């Protein structure tokens, strides 16, 4: 007999009923991340996941919300208590929490905040057989059992459809400052600053986002002035939205080469220290590593292939 957690909410159960036990289904959120992953098969029933912030406990630094909640709505609720969650999609008014997690797409502040997968504490999802499954728990530290949440993030719904999630929050920084350094060497910039939220580079200019205590921001800015000419700006660069590359961060400097990883992909902006490169044109699909193991997992969780068919494209 379970003595802990509450049962799935009525809304989650209704969502599970809508998913049903057969027929191809997928979740549609804000349609902001459909350029990632594969093309959805035709004639798939589209559903919307539950929406709304269910509970927010700033003292626990956790928030529970429907997977269909927009990131903007979540951000607003967290901001009322001076907190935030490490999700920074390009279009927060449209992008849903579930969509960001299902696509596994992290924000530009990943250098300091970590990837989105480290924010997911608990996921309630609807399985291929219609059951509501809970993975993880609503506490910030937990090693009770196997980490299904890590599989769910970036699975495009192909293992289970996210209904409700619990995310880890952090205190929001008091001050945020974008600093532009034209012609700077990104390596030198990275070596100079202690704990920036973001270092972006397009081959010509480096942008650094420094956040935190105002005196710390001032100190980091002073340090950067020793590296290159500094300009305080209102925002970082616009990030190309065609797609992303995921490269070992030590190899990012190859982006400058004509035959380098961004050749033919148009405008690009790299996240120094992380390895993500935002590109204008959708890159070709890379080969699937450990394909046998991945397909075994996919088949285990979705034997008939009814969940978001085509979105896991290999």
């Amino acid at each position, binding site marked *: 007999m379970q003595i802990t957690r509450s049962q799935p909410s009525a809304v989650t159960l209704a969502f599970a009923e809508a998913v049903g036990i057969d027929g191809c289904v997928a979740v549609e959120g804000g349609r902001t991340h459909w350029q990632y992953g594969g093309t959805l098969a035709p004639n798939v029933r589209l559903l919307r996941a539950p929406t709304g912030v269910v509970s927010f406990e700033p003292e626990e630094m956790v928030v529970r919300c429907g997977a269909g909640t927009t990131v903007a709505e979540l951000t607003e609720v967290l901001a009322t208590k001076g907190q935030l969650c490490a999700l920074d999609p390009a279009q927060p008014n449209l992008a849903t929490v579930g969509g960001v997690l299902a696509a596994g797409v992290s924000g530009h502040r990943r250098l300091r905040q970590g990837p989105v*997968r480290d924010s997911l504490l608990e996921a309630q999802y609807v399985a291929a057989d219609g059951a509501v499954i809970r993975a993880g*728990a609503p506490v910030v530290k937990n090693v009770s059992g196997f980490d299904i949440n890590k599989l769910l993030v970036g699975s495009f719904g192909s293992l289970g459809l996210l209904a409700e999630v619990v995310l880890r929050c952090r*205190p929001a920084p008091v001050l945020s400052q974008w600093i532009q350094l034209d012609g700077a060497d990104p390596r030198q910039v990275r070596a100079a600053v202690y704990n920036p939220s973001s270092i972006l580079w397009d081959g010509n200019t480096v942008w650094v986002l420094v956040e935190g205590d105002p005196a*710390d921001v001032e100190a980091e800015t002073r340090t950067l002035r020793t590296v290159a000419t500094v300009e305080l700006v209102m925002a970082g660069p616009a990030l190309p939205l065609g797609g992303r590359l995921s490269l070992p961060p030590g190899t990012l400097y190859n982006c400058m080469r004509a035959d380098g990883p961004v050749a033919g992909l148009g405008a690009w902006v790299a996240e120094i220290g992380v390895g993500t490169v935002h590109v204008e044109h959708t890159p070709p699909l890379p080969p699937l590593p450990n394909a046998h193991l991945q397909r075994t997992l996919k088949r285990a969780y979705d034997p008939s292939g009814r969940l978001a068919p085509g979105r896991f494209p290999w």
Partner: protein
Amino acid sequence: MHGGSTLDALVAELRAALAPGRVLNTAAEKALYAKDGSATTPSAPAVVCLPVSAAEVQACIRIAQAHARAITPRGSGTGLAGGAIPLDEPVVITTTKMNKVLEVNAEERYAWVEPGVLNLDLTKIVSAHGIHYAPDPSSQQSCSIGGNIATNAGGPHCLLHGTTSAHVLAVEVALPNGELVMLGGLEPDPVGLDLRGAFVGSEGTMGVATRIAVRLMADPPAVATMLASFATIAAASDAVSAIIAAGLLPAALEMMDANCIKAVERFAHAGLPEDAGAVLLVEVEGLSAGVCGASVLIDRVCRDHGATTVRTAADAVERALLWKARKSAFGAIASIKPNYYLHDAVVPRTRLTEVMQRVVEIADECDLIVLNVFHAGDGNLHPLLVFDRREPGIMERVERAGHAIIELCLSVGGVLSGEHGIGIEKRDYMGLLFSDDDLRHQDLLRHSFDPTAMCNPHKVLPAGSRCGELQHVPEGAWI
């Protein structure tokens, strides 16, 4: 089930694949590997292998498989949940001889290491570059990186920096079928599913890690370590909640109660206040100005919640002493009683005070001594029941108290384990935390990596977690 001649053949093949001296099968040698750091009943393996390479690990797995033997991976054997206890007389594969740091890239802040590298040794080796490995369990002088990965180990500094999973970039794994694969990589996002993330915390059930790329972090320019004393655990717990509510996320936030303070002070002589009901050890790190501001705020919050003294470590020596005090808590208890039963539950921070109160009551009801040391910042409790197991009737009281503590923590919305893992110890409580469907889904993951259930069997998931599973009765079990 396993005949004597088959065992001889198994040992001979392993010796041929590795080296005679690195395959152990005398009774005395096997007894050493029959236990880990937990109080779980020891269970002897069939044979113990000490490979020095991934190829040798693969050979051990294949030979075990050919002899229909399970395998049990083992790091340093410091685990506290029975994860490394060999059940079903398996082939134990211990990685203690795979202890080299292979490559350090200080600029990009990562290192490739073998699984037997000890946690603290890794930090010491890279420290000259001004970087360190962040996850710092109290056993870091003895525990291995491979073992840390198996349990997704924590430690005080995981409050700010995250647990092991956030610090593992890639793992080369010898799978239960003998194949060698690389999970993850230096790149930020995996192609397809995050197999690396699924492997971390799998407690030796999905294969043996043979090589790991770990993330390293820059040493902070400034650190402030503070010790605040309180008259009661309740006051200290409330201060913890208030620190978080004030918008601070310290690098570490630890609590010790009066029993623990007394035991530790006798050993570490760190100047801990022996008349305090509880102390908080708070550490903040970062740039100087932010650290200064945070210290001032923490001082004020502690005093607002009744702190009788707040002391800041004056230098690195004093800082080290305070941490020695905290991290030697388990060792120091030997001065009170020879045995301990350590819990590892997590509760929501806001329920800490009432839970700590109830834990003390449970110990009283069972007429046991309890020490409390824990990661107060993330609600991860370590109530330590100390006893002498030779005392008649005591084990029944210890188990009763343990069960009551677990049920208490789950009833307030907590979980079974914050960092030690489920192993054997908490396996049969999993049904209190998860539904049958939830457990079945966890087994889908495990089964995908280990279809024959021969990799560290009977750990983590209770029997019957899979539909139609045949109950596997360990040899020697009394039915």
